[in-house]
């Protein structure tokens, strides 16, 4: 039983292309996140959604557009890919409640832009 899944796991594409990464969670969570891990392994939040509503948008270029069709899915669409977009992208989810809410991470998608 996969809790948080991402497709694809690997994505190799040319500069200028448009690509999407999909994320699904079957944990019944209501909040989902995208994090980016760069070549130096630094992890940084990009977006969060709660019940399909955008909550966090951390000054990410507008070539990145998250979309949440329902609470269980959060997709990331990237337009006009650039070399600097090469990274591992992690999806995560949590269930909002007062106090501590663990974030569960997906396996990551390694994006390589040539």
């Amino acid at each position, binding site marked *: 039983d996969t809790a948080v899944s991402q497709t694809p796991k690997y994505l190799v594409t040319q500069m200028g292309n448009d690509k999407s990464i999909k994320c699904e969670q079957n944990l019944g969570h209501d909040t989902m996140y995208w994090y980016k891990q760069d070549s*130096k392994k*630094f992890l940084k*939040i990009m977006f*969060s*959604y709660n*019940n399909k509503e955008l909550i*966090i948008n951390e000054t990410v270029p507008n070539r990145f557009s998250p979309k949440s069709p329902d609470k269980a899915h959060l997709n990331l669409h990237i337009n006009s890919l650039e070399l600097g977009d090469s990274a591992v992208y992690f999806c995560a989810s949590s269930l*909002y409640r007062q106090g501590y809410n*663990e974030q569960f991470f997906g396996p990551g998608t*390694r994006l390589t832009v040539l």
Partner: protein
Amino acid sequence: AQTVTQSQPEMSVQEAETVTLSCTYDTSESDYYLFWYKQPPSRQMILVIRQEAYKQQNATENRFSVNFQKAAKSFSLKISDSQLGDAAMYFCAYRSAYGSNFGNEKLTFGTGTRLTIIP
């Protein structure tokens, strides 16, 4: 804004020995959560241990324990009886307990420490 610093890019330890990974953070908040995540070569992010700032008692999870020094803003991870499977990148992370409204619970990560276990 909060920052998390891991000053040891790489550490190594003999199998069965004990190793401590360092983490410091900067925040003006009094209530927050701290975490250690493990990322093995498989890339999967695995939660190792968490600490709530309002709890003075240091968290422990089997061979993993933390030394939480709130005044010093220090949060180190001790791994006892190191095993080959402990080899991984370890990330320290911070999460504010304030403004914990829906979806506003981002994790702020340090730059990671690569831990090597020597057989």
